[in-house]
């Protein structure tokens, strides 16, 4: 199929940043593009709306990033505090809001610090400079410095209210912003220091609403959606079957193709579901009707690297790997509140893409952009699973119908049923060693489901175009840092019934697991130490990878390690998204019952300049815990027409008894900041399975392990 693009459409796609993602050929005649995510990096013209000094003297920062536990709220607070010279606790930090934070990229890909901290730092410093000019102008002389203490300002040792200089409040123009380099300074008062942000206190004490479900608006109704599979009776008949008491409290409505129960109390909604016999019965999982990854794992659709011939009569390594689908399992099932009237559509939600959500709602509700005001709230876990859904639009349609604010909340079962998930993948890696023990042929072919160009986001007609391009999310981590001789890396993104999409790290966990396992196996075949083997293959341009590998080996005492039939050590390393580096060593013990216990994990981690060390360390810990989960537990059961996994009794991940002590070293602080939200996930899994393979004598090639 060949289609041409008019100039305006092409420039639209380029402006949206999608050209670099490969979407350049899009059908246009008679079709309008669906809302697409905004992919451009922040500019000064966008940033000016985020920061202001109010009349009261309060610093108001409306963040462009969703806080979902990754600690970006703390990090950006510190950036503003440092730039302006104010106590971070005095900043009025507001989560993203569509009237000030849009357009903005989705909060995905561990880019928030790298892309946003420098411009916000410049913004804050420029705000301070502009305030200084305003003060000088008001005082009629050059003031060289000031100090802010909460709502007061001290100038030449005299304190007065900051509000003295804030009529009108201070906003910047684009021309006021001086872009300055963003680096770690010895003189930093806030950046790089220990900090607990104020919302954490609210979390710990329930003193203020923090999550969407904590909000109760006056006259608010609550709605629960019901599965279409039980939508057989006519609405009126269902309503009639309700007991009298519930008839007064509940209304059954259909919006688009979904049935909702609406009322004031969730207890009543649940009672109605039970009385009407509408609860889904659990279904026994049936085997998949087809092997979606059938066929060879070479000569695949999309080529990442094809250099030289990888053909060999015999390979030193020929391994096939398989990893299952997995759920996000964020602790907070999503919810959204809508308050709709003739003038405005006001939404409270927690998703990872406020820009896409507003665009979608403009189209879905046929309202103007200016009429739609979206407030982001803290999210109880995202991990890529809450980039987009229609929950806000569902709430808005119901609010419009009822003339009241409406909260829609998904159940945990809805999250499994209607959400999208990490796709499974299958890999084959073949490699040969030359007489010097260096890898001279490397062939990696793999198949997986879609991640970025997912059926969860894109209508069918666009999917067929993106199928031509190759999903970069699937490929993440598939091109290792190592130098091999001849290299062929290729993949196929398969469409299957399970809705799939971005999951923490995208392809990075499965791809790095397969690659690092192959590396460990080849090192053994070559009779070489796996640390030295890696160092021999890391080219000069990836010195930072070599550094974290050396560092973790030193931390764990790798050269002096004592292994036996019960205790073994494994190692892995990797680069996340060409920007952050980690290396992990796992010490694992075989238990009498045949299970494995991780005794300790060591990780060396380099994501450049770290704004909030405790926050980054927590991300490293979290990523390693996800690796443990992928090794031992995480498996989503799905079939041709549904997801069989329904709730947490059927879905497990690493918990308190699984988590070992961890020794973590963060390094590279002199480099520009990159990201930590997904980095350690490249090195944890294979380190653990390497240790296990030594204890069992067999390479671990299937995850999760069945024990």
């Amino acid at each position: 199929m060949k289609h041409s693009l008019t100039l305006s459409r092409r420039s639209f796609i380029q402006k949206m940043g999608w050209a670099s993602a490969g979407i350049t050929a899009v059908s246009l005649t008679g079709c309008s593009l669906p809302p697409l995510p905004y992919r451009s990096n922040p500019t000064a013209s966008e940033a000016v709306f985020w920061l202001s000094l109010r009349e009261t003297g309060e610093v108001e920062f409306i963040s462009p990033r969703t806080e979902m536990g990754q600690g970006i709220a703390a990090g950006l607070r510190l950036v503003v505090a440092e730039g302006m010279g104010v106590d971070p606790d005095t900043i009025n930090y507001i989560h993203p809001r569509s009237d000030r934070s849009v357009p903005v990229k989705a909060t995905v890909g561990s880019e928030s610090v790298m892309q946003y901290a420098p411009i916000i730092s410049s913004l804050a410093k420029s705000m301070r400079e502009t305030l200084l000019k305003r003060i000088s102008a008001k005082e009629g002389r050059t003031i060289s410095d000031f100090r802010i203490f909460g709502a007061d300002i001290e100038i030449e040792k005299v304190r007065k209210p900051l509000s003295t200089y804030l009529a009108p409040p201070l906003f910047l123009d684009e021309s006021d912003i001086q872009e300055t380099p963003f680096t770690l300074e010895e003189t930093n008062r806030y950046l790089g220091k220990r900090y607990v942000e104020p919302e954490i206190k609210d979390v710990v004490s329930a003193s203020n609403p923090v999550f969407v479900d904590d909000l109760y608006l006056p006259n608010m109704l609550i709605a629960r959606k019901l599965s279409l599979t039980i939508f057989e009776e006519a609405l009126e008949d269902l309503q009639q079957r309700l007991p009298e008491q519930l008839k007064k409290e509940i209304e059954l409505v259909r919006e688009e193709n979904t049935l909702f129960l609406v009322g004031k109390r969730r207890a009543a909604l649940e009672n109605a579901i039970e009385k009407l016999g509408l609860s889904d019965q659990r279904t026994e999982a049936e085997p998949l009707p087809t092997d979606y990854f059938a066929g060879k794992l070479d000569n695949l659709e999309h080529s990442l690297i094809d250099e030289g011939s990888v053909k060999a009569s015999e390979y030193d390594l020929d391994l096939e790997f398989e990893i299952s689908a997995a759920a996000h399992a964020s602790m907070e099932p999503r919810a959204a509140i809508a308050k709709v009237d003739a003038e405005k559509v006001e939404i409270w939600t927690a998703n990872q893409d406020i820009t896409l959500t507003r665009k979608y709602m403009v189209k879905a509700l046929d309202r103007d952009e200016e009429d739609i005001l979206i407030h982001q709230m803290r999210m109880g876990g995202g991990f890529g699973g809450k980039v987009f859904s229609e929950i806000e639009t569902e709430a808005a349609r119901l609010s419009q119908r009822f003339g009241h604010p409406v909260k829609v909340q998904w159940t945990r079962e809805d999250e499994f049923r209607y959400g999208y998930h990490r796709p499974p993948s299958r890999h084959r890696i073949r490699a040969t060693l030359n007489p010097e023990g260096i890898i001279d042929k490397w062939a990696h072919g793999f198949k997986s489901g879609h991640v970025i160009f997912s059926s969860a986001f894109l209508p069918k007609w666009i999917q067929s175009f993106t199928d031509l391009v190759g999903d970069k999310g699937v490929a993440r981590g598939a091109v290792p840092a190592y130098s091999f001789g001849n290299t062929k890396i290729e993949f196929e993104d398969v469409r299957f019934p399970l809705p799939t999409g971005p999951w923490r790290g995208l392809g990075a966990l499965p791809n790095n697991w397969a690659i690092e396992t192959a590396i460990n196996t080849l090192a053994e075949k070559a009779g070489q130490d796996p640390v030295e083997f890696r160092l021999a293959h890391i080219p000069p341009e990836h010195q930072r990878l070599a550094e974290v590998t050396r560092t973790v080996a030193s931390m764990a005492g790798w050269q002096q390690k004592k292994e036996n039939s019960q205790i073994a050590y494994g190692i892995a390393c990797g680069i996340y998204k060409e920007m952050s580096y980690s290396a992990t060593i796992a010490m694992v013990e075989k238990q009498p019952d045949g299970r494995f216990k991780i005794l300790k994990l060591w990780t060396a981690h380099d994501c450049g300049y770290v704004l909030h060390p405790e926050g980054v360390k927590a991300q490293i810990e979290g990523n390693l815990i996800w690796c443990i989960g992928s090794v031992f537990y995480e498996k989503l059961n799905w079939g041709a027409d549904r997801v069989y996994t329904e709730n947490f009794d059927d879905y497990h991940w690493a918990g308190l008894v699984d988590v070992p002590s961890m020794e973590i070293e963060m390094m590279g602080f002199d480099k520009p900041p990159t990201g930590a939200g997904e980095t350690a996930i490249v090195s944890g899994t294979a380190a653990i399975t390497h240790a296990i393979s030594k204890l069992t004598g067999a390479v671990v090639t299937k995850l999760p392990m069945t024990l």
Partner: protein
Amino acid sequence: MKFTLNGQSVSLPKQWREDRLLWVLRDHFNLIGPKYGCGIGECGACTIHLDGEAVRSCSMTAGDVEGASITTLEGLQNQSGQPHPVQKAWMINNVPQCGFCQNGQIMTAAALYNSPEKKSDEDVIEEMARVRCRCGTQVRIQKALKDLKLGRNA
């Protein structure tokens, strides 16, 4: 139907006896401490104290608490508004990431802390392990539990 809620005497209509307690606490009393995570008593996000014992409010009815004393996260601080030692340990160790599970973590730890009868270290871990956390705050929970010396052998 009467019970004590965070130190206050409250009453509910009799016909709500069979209603899920979590929803009564949230939708009727507008309390935000106990959270909906799974609805089947598996994750612990809904944990409250019933006469000092940690229980899962999603797996109880309003009728189950008649005559009892219920404490939610809101009521955990002492009468002068000072945080509970568990809340302090959680802040010092920077435990929460997204924060959604932390009601369950804190209320379970607080019940263990408040209990006159100390459990073994293994039992403390086993009980805390039944509260799920997806972000991976377990390393810091372990540290906070150590600081609090919750177990008999601590």
